């Protein structure tokens, strides 16, 4: 107990020291003028070109600058971040590989009937809001990550309120979720590759690059700019849709796995001796 107190005192001193160290350069203006009066040049470029019909070689045809940066200007970046995201989920699933897809032995009954019915109605609402966020991702704030994170909480609430039996009762079994997730990942890859397919099959006059969206100075390939009667953002719409499906299913899988009952989960560390 005495040792902890000494440790705490050392840490508090260090914290005050760290705050001072950080605060001095801030006050001296290391982060440029505070708060910034004008935008940085790169931000001006992005904002100016995102939806600029007068300069169609640089635009993305999506009025929302954040979605445009995520999926067009820095699209390759986001692709690799998606890979990191998948690796983390796959790693989490792999720790449970002994019991994946097994039926649980719990016989729960969930919360009271009032909560169950109110949640059932609101789950429909959550899904609608999530999908609307995904599908309007290029027009209003939203997109694949946001809508997916919103809609994925449906499965969480369902498991909490209705108990784990809802997984067997609903139509979304473990294998189907896995299938949708992989299909969505393939979809992202496909949309990214489509612009360079003619080049791959020998048409060397057709210069284009991976993750291309709208027409560029060197080539004439372009995803559609308008869907029915609203701006579409070309490939951004597809990426939003696929990423949304991927996020929903990946998080649902992870949650289903983490929610296995303790008795079943202990199977995963059986076999190895209980040691270190």
């Amino acid at each position: 107990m005495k040792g902890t107190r000494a440790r705490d005192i050392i840490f508090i001193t260090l914290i005050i020291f760290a705050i001072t160290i950080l605060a001095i350069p801030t006050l001296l203006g290391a982060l440029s003028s505070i708060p910034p009066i004008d935008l940085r040049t790169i931000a001006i470029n992005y904002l100016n070109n995102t939806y600029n019909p007068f300069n169609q070689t640089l635009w993305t045809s999506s009025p929302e600058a954040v979605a445009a940066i995520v999926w067009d200007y820095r699209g390759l970046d986001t692709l690799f971040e998606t890979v990191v995201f998948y690796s983390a989920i796959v790693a989490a699933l792999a720790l449970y590989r002994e019991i994946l897809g097994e039926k649980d032995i719990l016989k729960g009954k969930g919360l009271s009937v009032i909560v169950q019915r109110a949640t059932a109605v609101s789950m429909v609402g959550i899904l609608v809001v999530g999908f609307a966020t995904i599908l309007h991702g290029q027009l209003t704030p939203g997109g694949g990550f946001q809508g997916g994170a919103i809609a994925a909480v449906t499965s969480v609430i369902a498991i909490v309120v209705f108990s784990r039996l809802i997984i067997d009762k609903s139509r979304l079994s473990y294998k189907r979720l896995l299938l949708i997730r992989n299909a969505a990942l393939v979809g992202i890859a496909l949309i990214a590759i489509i612009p360079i397919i003619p080049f791959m099959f020998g048409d060397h006059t057709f210069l284009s690059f991976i993750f291309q969206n709208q027409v560029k100075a060197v080539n004439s390939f372009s995803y559609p700019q308008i869907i029915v009667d609203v701006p579409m953002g070309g490939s951004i719409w597809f990426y939003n849709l696929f990423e949304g499906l991927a996020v929903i299913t990946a998080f649902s899988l992870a949650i289903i796995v983490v929610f296995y009952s303790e008795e079943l989960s202990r199977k995963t560390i059986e076999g190895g001796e209980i040691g270190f």
Partner: protein
Amino acid sequence: MGSEIQIAMYMTVILSLYINISICMYGVISKPNLIKKLISLTILQDSINMFLILIGYRLWRPGIVLQPPVLLDWSPTSEVLKQFLERAVDPLPQALVLTAIVIGLAVNIFLITVILHTYRHFGTVDMDEIGRLKRVVIVEETA
């Protein structure tokens, strides 16, 4: 006069974010309980994300209301675009933070499964306790 209040408040925000970051670092390093470490880690992530967003903000000019970087007019004239440029905030930090948050969640899920396995293995999540258990076993093996 108004601008001074704004600058003072902005400094307050930055300072409190520094305080939050340091406290969370204290929590991550010093607290022996793994769950407490996890809670501190999430707050640390949030604070750093907040810092990034804060740098993308800008001062309000008189007569202008800032807006998020979303264009609402779908057949803009050059006048509309110029106005948009005057009012919108920086979209780049937002795009970076967006992916960072989701990936942070995925990594946190992985950490949680690891913590659960640690608990099933050792019967505790206290790092001091786990270290003591390991030392005991090593002493038994060598003796």
